[in-house]
């Protein structure tokens, strides 16, 4: 049970940081070098105050989980290359070096695919050509675009988890929300801002309804929300398909399950009016929703009830809180946020509804709610990471031929490391303070 003295660990970490700095300098990656220096300064400043140290401790697990996931991802990338095995016997060092180079190339392409090429961005901005600027900024715009529904659905899952309800139905709630929003967008004739606002509200309502059902079932009958939300995910998918093939949503004479486009008045405006940039007002709505969620959870009596029920439902009951009502309300809020994610997608990104409206945003939401420690701020950061992986993947696959599945693998690894804090603690020999309740405890059936 011997633990490395804290001094040794610090020295090792400093050496690693210095090594990266030298590497960045030699490769003239000045932006990366700058970012690293900023991070080091931020850590130094934060560790001077007690609050900052708490924050740093809280960040240790997720950051180390992400680092570990990318390291293991890299190892798998090397080992899955058949040439590696044939060449390794002939020239071990050279093969290893070239394999490591391939990993670096893949991750580099991933970053460029997600954030854009700094060189291109600066030349495009200098040229002042709208088309060029659009193309240069497109990667980061796509990252933000994918981040938007992830933030909203992630917030929904986080609210439920904090309240002790294991809502894994964000995917279904998102789809129902998208359906409600698209219906209002197509059929309700209203002028500009009112139309889009009503459509957003309809999305929230749809998701909330889809959250209310498992909530009330659990409160009244004790039906376990994991089962009911999974079932409701499947039902949501089928309901959506049925409506997409009916005159309710399908254009007259249509044969494919694709809805009519929504009215222009129901569309969420773009944030930047440049060619190729699709990021829209949904991003701002998502950030506002994060602020609202934080206010709800920490500055209201309802949030107090949610958190009390999540940490200790028995004591909450003893103190006079109503377990059933808390569960239902938490599920309604959770579903509403997921529904808003669906609304934002159809009103801002696609402008119509199709069965592929969500490439698994509702499932990613579970992972990133855990990664973000079920805190709204953490969810936003985690959603950015997952958004970047989603947006940067195609670029990486195109540029380096590394299969995009590697990224799904890395996302899964991130969650595995977050869920196994002891593993991270043992690997890196760091102390981890107890983080927020990342997984809800099983809740007793309320009577």
């Amino acid at each position: 049970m011997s633990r490395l003295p804290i001094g040794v660990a610090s020295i090792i970490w400093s050496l690693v940081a210095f090594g990266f700095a030298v590497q960045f300098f030699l490769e003239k990656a000045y932006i990366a070098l700058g970012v690293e220096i900023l991070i080091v300064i931020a850590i130094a400043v934060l560790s001077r105050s007690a609050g900052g140290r708490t924050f740093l401790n809280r960040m240790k697990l997720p950051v180390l989980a992400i680092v570990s996931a990318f390291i293991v991802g890299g190892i798998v990338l090397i080992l899955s290359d058949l040439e590696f095995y044939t060449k390794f016997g002939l020239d071990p060092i050279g093969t290893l070096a070239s394999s490591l180079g391939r990993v670096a190339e893949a991750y580099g392409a991933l970053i460029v695919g997600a954030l854009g090429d700094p060189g291109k961005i600066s030349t495009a901005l200098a040229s002042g050509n709208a088309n060029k600027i659009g193309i240069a900024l497109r990667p980061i715009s796509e990252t933000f675009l994918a981040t938007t529904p992830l933030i909203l659905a992630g917030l929904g899952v986080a609210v439920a988890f904090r309240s002790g309800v294991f809502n894994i139905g964000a995917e279904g709630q998102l789809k129902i929300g998208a359906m409600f929003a698209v219906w209002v967008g197509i059929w309700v004739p209203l002028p500009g801002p009112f139309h889009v606002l009503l459509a957003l509200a309809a999305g929230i309502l749809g998701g909330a309804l889809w959250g209310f059902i498992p909530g009330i079932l659990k409160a009244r009958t004790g039906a376990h929300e994991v089962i009911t939300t999974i079932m409701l995910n499947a039902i949501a998918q089928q309901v959506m398909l049925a409506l997409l093939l009916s005159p309710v949503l399908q254009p007259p004479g249509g044969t494919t399950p694709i809805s009519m486009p929504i009215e222009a008045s129901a569309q969420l405006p773009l944030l930047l009016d440049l060619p190729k940039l699709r990021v829209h007002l949904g991003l701002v709505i998502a950030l506002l929703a994060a602020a609202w969620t934080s206010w709800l959870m920490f500055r209201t009596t309802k949030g107090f009830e949610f958190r009390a029920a999540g940490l200790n439902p028995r004591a909450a009951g003893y103190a006079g809180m109503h377990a059933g009502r808390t569960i239902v309300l938490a599920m309604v809020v959770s579903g509403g946020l997921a529904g808003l994610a669906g609304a934002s997608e159809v009103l801002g990104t696609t402008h119509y509804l199709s069965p592929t409206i969500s490439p698994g945003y509702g499932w990613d939401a579970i992972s990133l709610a855990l990664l973000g420690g079920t805190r709204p701020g953490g969810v936003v950061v985690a959603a950015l990471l997952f958004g970047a992986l989603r947006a940067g993947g195609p670029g990486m696959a195109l540029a380096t031929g590394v299969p995009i599945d590697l990224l799904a693998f890395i996302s899964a690894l991130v969650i595995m490391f977050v869920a196994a804090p002891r593993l991270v603690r043992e690997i890196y020999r760091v102390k981890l303070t107890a983080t927020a309740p990342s997984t809800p405890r099983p809740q007793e059936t309320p009577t």
Partner: protein
Amino acid sequence: MRLRLNGITKQFPGVLANDHVSIEVDRGEILALLGENGAGKTTLMNILSGLYRPDAGEIVVDDTPRSFRDPAEAIAAGIGMVHQHFMLVPIFDVTDSVTLGSEVTRGPLGVIDRPAARARIVELSETYGLDVDPDAMIEDLPVGVRQRVEILKALYRHSDILVLDEPSAVLTPQETDELFVIIRSLAKAGTAIIFISHKLNEVLEIADRITVLRLGKVVGTVIPAETTQAALAEMMVGRQVQLTVERKDAARGPVVLTVDKLQVRDDRGEITVKHLDLEVHAGEIVAVAGVQGNGQTEFVEALTGLRAIDAGTVSVDGKAIPGDPRGIADLGVAHIPEDRLRDGLVRGFTVAENYVLDAYHREPYSSGIRFHRDAVASAATKAVADFDIRTPSISTDVGSLSGGNQQKVIVAREFGREVKLVIASQPTRGLDVGSIEYIHRRIVEQRDAGVAILIVSTELDEVLALGDRVAVMYDGEIVGILPAAEATREKVGLLMGGVR
């Protein structure tokens, strides 16, 4: 020497649980290990039974240093544990329970040799006067007998170092006497016994030697004949202790709580509170004694709105109580639940948040939906000072406080408002002597201020120390109510065992 622990040291994050602890016990000897909760008794026993490994120090069995990697090695060395919470399967019979994990098998297929096992159990049972039926189902056995099954388990595994962790906690005084007879007969047959307890009268009665632990260190070892309860208490706590609660006679006022023919069912739907009648007046303490599991939990849950009332009525000041905890609290009823971390506090919440756990929705802590953290913080700061809650700050997680301070948070919350009835369930369970003194004093203060107080406790000492009237609960009924003057240990003990 059969067993010697030499300089055992065990460090947990932030706590030195054992600091160079040395104890020894020989064949045929009964060593009592006395200490408050948190003194390091349990850690020491977990090290002895192979659950933890010590940071320093050695375990010497028969003059040979040993180190146990797991409980199996400790058992092989002859160490048997009887835990406070029994480790038995309810739907097994005694023979299967005893042999579980060390079954005797026969033939190449490993058929369990039940007759052989049964014969050995009968023999052991007779030798030591355990009086256990080898074919009885565990779930049908009273607690005292289940404990003897645990002892049988240890003996069956050839343990001759027997560790009993707070064995009397679940027993009536009479059952405790029976247990002591068994312990003495085991010692006579050569077993080395370590008897862990925080009850002074018990260790004085049973032990050959008493080793006192405080804050992880051995304070000293004494012989019962050469010490007194007061001297032991002082060793245990580190200062002079008031062993009895100082108080005036009760000034009884009008009836506050009336329980009339109350019937309550437990989670399995069985009637566990039967036809219960009880009255508590303003300005008096009624203490309900009883062995654990005689319906006390369900009784208190019904009184506080946590469990539906099946039949009968409960009224406060003549009005029938509403059916929900908040409605009852609003009548001026305070509730100290039996398990503070399970029912009374939210771990992960701060001291301040726990302080307003039942009042967060009222002024000044909130208006409308808005929760005012400033108002909560100032109220909590005041409560921490008023109730002497030792905490680094009001933003500290309540789970990291000591048991005594956790209980003070609950007491501060419940007594911090105007109340006319206090329902306290096991208010001092697992607390150190200092905290017990403090909580008792606060309860008596409330009584003197004219509050009606109902205490439900399985600690007979507590019941006798606090009760102006002592009611005894047995099998879901109040089987007797004695005024304090008549409530002797013997009389109450007999009632607790169901003898009227």
